């Protein structure tokens, strides 16, 4: 139903209609703009309130927050620092990325260029299902299945590749940083694969056809036209995956050994991450302890913010990727 146009005086329209703003327009516009601004405000509030609650704990800290390894914020003389946790977060996320990235690129290529056309959609959905499994289920799977299972492969790595510092050490455990990283890798695989797939699908068909017409094999066509086109997209997908791995909490809270050491020996029973420590330490935290955990969360927030922003900037710079950013 549309009301007929009327003049400013309210009489029936004669000649050129005078435009009057509809009464609902203002409020509706205000509501939509307000919702958008609210989202920005939430982002700002996250930073502000984390800082507000972290500061008292940081003031009570008797050690240096950025360099201290020990985490005993609940004692009467609180000592805590982010060093070991941040190190564990970074090393486990990078390990996860190193394991997940090649597989994810393979999966993306498989779905975009190798799988039979009719199956591609279904196979893509199967990979997306990996992302649908809740983190706590991966954690449970890790604790009950993967930790005992990893004892064998870890011993193998330690025996034959012990000369690599990463796999060195006297004792080998299933409950290790490596096992946690594998689970992280599985969890970030679908994200990296999904974005890479979108980017690969957007490679200009004309280039692909041109290289095939010149006699290139399928691999040569992919190497020369698809991969160069997709590279920035894949890089940013990898960074988004890295950010996800750093923030992942519950699965690694169940799997990581939860000690406060800085070690490259990823097969040993040492290591932890910021997020895992928050989940494990929250239950018995005193007010200062909670503040300390919030401070560590702030560090995690800043790290992931930097990684994600960089990734988004890479995607946003290229208009061709517009559809891949979701």
């Amino acid at each position, binding site marked *: 139903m*549309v009301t007929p146009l009327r003049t400013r005086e309210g009489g029936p329209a004669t000649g050129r209609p005078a435009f009057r*703003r*509809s009464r*609902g*327009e203002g409020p509706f516009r205000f*509501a939509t703009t307000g*919702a*958008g*601004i*609210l*989202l920005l405000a*939430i982002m700002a509030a*996250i930073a502000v*309130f*984390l800082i*507000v*609650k972290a500061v008292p704990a940081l003031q009570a800290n008797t050690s240096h927050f950025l360099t201290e390894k020990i985490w005993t914020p609940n004692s009467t003389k609180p000592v805590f620092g982010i060093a070991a946790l941040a190190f564990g977060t970074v090393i486990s996320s990078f390990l996860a990325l190193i394991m997940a990235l090649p*597989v*994810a690129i*393979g*999966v993306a*290529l498989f*779905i975009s260029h*190798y*799988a039979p056309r009719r199956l591609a959609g279904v*196979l893509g959905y199967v990979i997306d299902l*990996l992302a*649908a*499994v*809740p*983190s*706590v*289920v991966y*954690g*449970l*799977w890790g604790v009950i*299945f993967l930790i005992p299972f990893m004892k064998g492969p870890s011993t193998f790595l330690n025996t034959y590749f012990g000369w690599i510092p990463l796999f060195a050490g006297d004792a080998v455990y299933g409950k290790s940083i490596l096992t946690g990283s594998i689970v992280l890798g599985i969890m970030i695989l679908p994200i990296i*694969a999904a974005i890479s797939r979108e980017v690969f699908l957007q490679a200009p068909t004309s280039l692909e056809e041109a290289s095939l017409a010149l*006699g290139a*094999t*399928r*691999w*040569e066509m992919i190497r020369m036209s698809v991969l160069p086109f997709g590279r920035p997209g894949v890089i940013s997908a990898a960074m*988004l995956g890295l950010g996800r791995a750093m*923030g992942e*909490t*519950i699965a690694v*809270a169940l799997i990581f050994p939860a000690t406060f050491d800085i070690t490259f020996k990823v097969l040993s029973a040492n290591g932890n991450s910021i*997020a895992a420590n*928050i*989940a494990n330490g929250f239950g018995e935290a005193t007010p200062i302890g909670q503040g300390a955990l919030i401070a560590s969360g702030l560090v*995690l*927030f800043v790290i*992931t*913010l930097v*990684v*994600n*922003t960089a990734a*988004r900037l890479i995607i946003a710079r290229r208009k061709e990727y517009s559809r891949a950013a*979701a």
Partner: protein
Amino acid sequence: MTMSPVITPLAFSRRLKNRIVQGLVWLAFAIAVVPLVSVLWLVVKNGYARFDAEFLTHSMRNIGARDAGGGAYHAVLGTLEQVGLATLISVPIGLLTAVYLVEYGQGRRLSRSISFFVDVMTGIPSVVAGLFVLAFWVLVLGFGYSGFAGALALSILMMPTVVRSAEEMLRLVPNDLREASYALGVPKWKTITRIVLPTALTGIVTGVMLAIARVAGETAPLLLTVFITDSINTDPFTGPQMGLPLYVFDQAQRPNVTAVDRAWAGALTLILIVMLLNLVARLITWWRSPAKGR
């Protein structure tokens, strides 16, 4: 392929490389599927043992540390309430933001920064969202742990997903529809609410359901805001509640076989809920997709 004399056959090394890469790509896909199959298989196999009527209708109240029995009724109830509340909070905000971005914000600086931060917000670790609500709602405002606090944390995680999917769907609505509506003298806001939104509705519903499925499995934010309880608490606004993911986390950490069995059954329930949401969402898209065959 017939070989004309001018075309020489492909060099062996090139053919070999092509084959090797093809094999690797297939292998990558196989590797990716292995953990999925393993997880799903173990959850179904181990979860089946305790996935019974008692599990779905009883809480953990008065269940001793070593006792068998008990269930996740309180956790399922809590999850439904928390996720429901989170949806009620995040969908209006997310939808309005998407409308702003698509219909009003075109090319404005505010719109560009909102769009950018929505993307950044997708990457916020769920535990940080939990910490924020803990700091803001529980500690500074002093409301205490409750299902609603958990819902707040979940809604922060839902909002960017809802905005993104709704935005994409709104952009798919043909401009002709808008212009036809304007031509009839319909004001812009009415065009949006009567023409654009109904057209995009199925897509938006799909996006919302996928967002729900995503947060229904979140544990970390609930751990920090809802706390843990073994009893039934139907009121999401006062007192600690339970959530299904929390329940799995809690039971998985207990050393007894009976608890681990309950954890698996909880995981099975959770996966069934999440997969069902996913499946329904995909079916809606498949059924009424504006761009079929994508």
